[in-house]
């Protein structure tokens, strides 16, 4: 692959990319933050100097506002000095093609020939079901139907604040092919601890290798999921078909049919 590619306006060196404002390599970046100092010229100067230390040339404070308790909010622009070599970027991703709902249903009928059982929950103290609902509930999200709608699939949504033990017990009871764990509120990394505990409990129960284990949520990447011992992780903008495609092809790959 060539390191130089041509766009409509100018050439880009993919080994040295930086932000684009209105001119190639201008590095233009917008940022905003608060400093715990009173509003005024000194505060703005402090924000500018800080932006310089962050690696911005010619930082400029375009707006500042007194937050009322001796703190000040800033909006700044600056020119980023740093560059990234795009040609060496590698991001682990869930492999395999994504099938749509009808393709998934046909895949089950052709290759699995039995009902596929999936159990999902928002575990631990997390009370936010928006993620697991989007994947499992009939209605789905943004026009993508949930797994409950899939012919050949039995999808159980256990809701929120489900203890890991209860989720595992349910998975054993219904002989689940896959467990889906959703984590939305992740303040102070509580989700990492909770998700790790689930893997440990499954290992202790001797079912870890019998079940496809998947996690999802806005702060979850496939890479993080694999580090924690999950088979796959789905971040924002994932829908039921992404999860279903992975589960179904894994079932066949692992000869769980």
């Amino acid at each position: 692959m060539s390191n130089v590619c041509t766009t409509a306006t100018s050439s880009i060196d993919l080994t040295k990319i930086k932000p684009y404002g209105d001119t190639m390599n201008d590095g233009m970046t917008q940022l905003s933050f608060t400093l715990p100092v009173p509003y005024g010229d000194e505060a703005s100067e402090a924000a500018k100097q800080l932006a310089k230390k962050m690696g911005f040339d010619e930082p400029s404070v375009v707006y500042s506002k007194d937050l009322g308790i001796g703190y000040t909010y800033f909006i700044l622009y600056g020119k980023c000095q740093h560059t990234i070599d795009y040609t060496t970027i590698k991001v682990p991703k869930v492999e395999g093609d994504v099938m749509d709902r009808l393709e998934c249903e046909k895949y089950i009928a052709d290759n699995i020939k039995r009902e596929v059982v999936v159990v999902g929950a928002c575990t631990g103290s997390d009370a936010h079901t928006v993620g697991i609902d989007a994947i499992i509930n009939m209605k789905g999200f943004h026009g993508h139907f949930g797994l409950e709608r899939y012919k050949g699939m039995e999808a159980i949504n256990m809701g929120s604040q489900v203890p890991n033990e209860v989720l595992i017990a349910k998975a054993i009871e219904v002989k689940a092919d896959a467990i889906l764990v959703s984590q939305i509120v992740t303040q102070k990394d509580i989700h990492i601890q909770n998700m790790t505990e689930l893997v440990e409990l499954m290992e202790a129960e001797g079912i870890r290798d019998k079940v496809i284990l998947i996690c999802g949520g806005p702060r979850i990447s496939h890479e993080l999921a694999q580090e924690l011992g999950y088979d796959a992780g789905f971040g924002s903008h994932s829908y039921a078909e992404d999860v279903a495609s992975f589960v179904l092809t894994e079932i066949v790959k692992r000869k769980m049919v």
Partner: protein
Amino acid sequence: MKSKLNLDPKVIDSARSCAARIAAEMQIFIDRHTTVSTERTILRLLGIDGVDEVDTPLANVIVDVLKEGGGLGRGAAYWIGNAMIQTGLSPQEIAEKTASGELELLKLPTCTAKESEEKILPVVLDALSAIRKQTEKREEYLATIGEGKRPYLYVIVATGNIYEDIIQAQAAARQGADIIAVIRTTAQSLLDYVPYGPTTEGFGGTYATQENFRLMRKALDEVGEDVGRYIRLCNYSSGMCMPEIAAMGAIERLDVMLNDALYGILFRDINMQRTLVDQFFSRVIIKYSGIIFNSGEDNYLTTADAYEEAHTVLASQFINEQFAVLAGIPEEQMGLGHAFEMDPEMENGFLYELSQALMAKEIFPKAALKYMPPTKFMTGNIFKGHLQDALFNMIAVWTGQSLQLLGMLTEAIHTPHLHDRMLSIENASYIFNNARNIGEEIEFKEGGIIQKRAQSVLSEAEKLLADIEKEGLFATIEQGKFGGVKRARDGGKGLAGVCVKDEQYFNPFIPLMMGGAK
């Protein structure tokens, strides 16, 4: 006033009387039962405070003793009154000696219920007088330093540390906020006790404790005096300790409290029998202390579709209104909830949202309607999110909402940062001021999209209420008609804490509070 939506008053009346019968039917069940949390509330109001050596609140210690010994059906008030007669001790001394094992409440000689009630009356009147002093203090503040214009700007703080919350809350008040809600730590609603003392650790929020309430109240009074505007404090009288937290809120002068049994049943899986009994006493306390309660209908729309299920929100508002009427709550203290949660991709979505919000205002004209911001379709695109919040603010000022929970542009990313709150207050203040009287200027096309939508939602709500009346509220919830969530009558958390009252049972607070005792 003439309905701008051309709503049929007969349909409204029919829906409302259906809801009244549904609530009255449930009240028969409620009146026969008490719960561990209701009894702990009585103990707290009698002045019993503090924890034992393993941090169990003394109110829990006593109620556990009564429950294990089979005495709960007679009510905690009876046993405390009896112990006062037999020992000459104060309620707090009785609690401490019970916790240390020096006193066995159920083994004392027993007096009659009447004797106990008479003995305890002065303590009850003292408690009511302390609460009355707090409501007078609020009235005095409103008369002297005044308050912000409606819709009140309502923001949340959620750092987990009460002292950090205070910094954020005072900053928000200085930026223009009228109501500060301290979000509770995740899962506190499922604890069957109220933690004790000031707290500095929490996930996604801060523990509701009486000391935390007191600290925040003091901080808001200080900043309110400084900015010349009374700053209201909000917390959650919901979950397993619904009435206890209402009592703490009454004692520490909270102004707004989330309070909705249906929400607890559907979204926290709390047992329906338990929480409906709890809700009644909590609403009586809320009524007496001049607190505005907030119901949680907005939450249905986080799981169910806001366009298709709009009538379930209205039906639930009618039911919540009637439960409030049974607790004696005046309309002005009814913060019935709803939300701006339709998919922003929907054509004419703004018109439907406008129709829904105005419909609520026309049906509940004096209520302090609580309007909740978009959350479900917030994406992390903070710029678009700020616009969604602007449309939401536009509808609020247009339709006369009362409690405007401000949307945050960083919704779906993190709990609000200091400047997120400033930006959302700026957004709302700009729009409220810039469009202040728009509602009085604009009328709607006869038979147009906006009128027809409201009429159809009202008519569907009326039908749903008629079905609920036929089947009963418990059965309706079991079938998943609210928020698409199904709950079993004997399922969920806390059923073991429900108990049938015996013939001598009394709760001295309910008649006095409902009668408006001084």
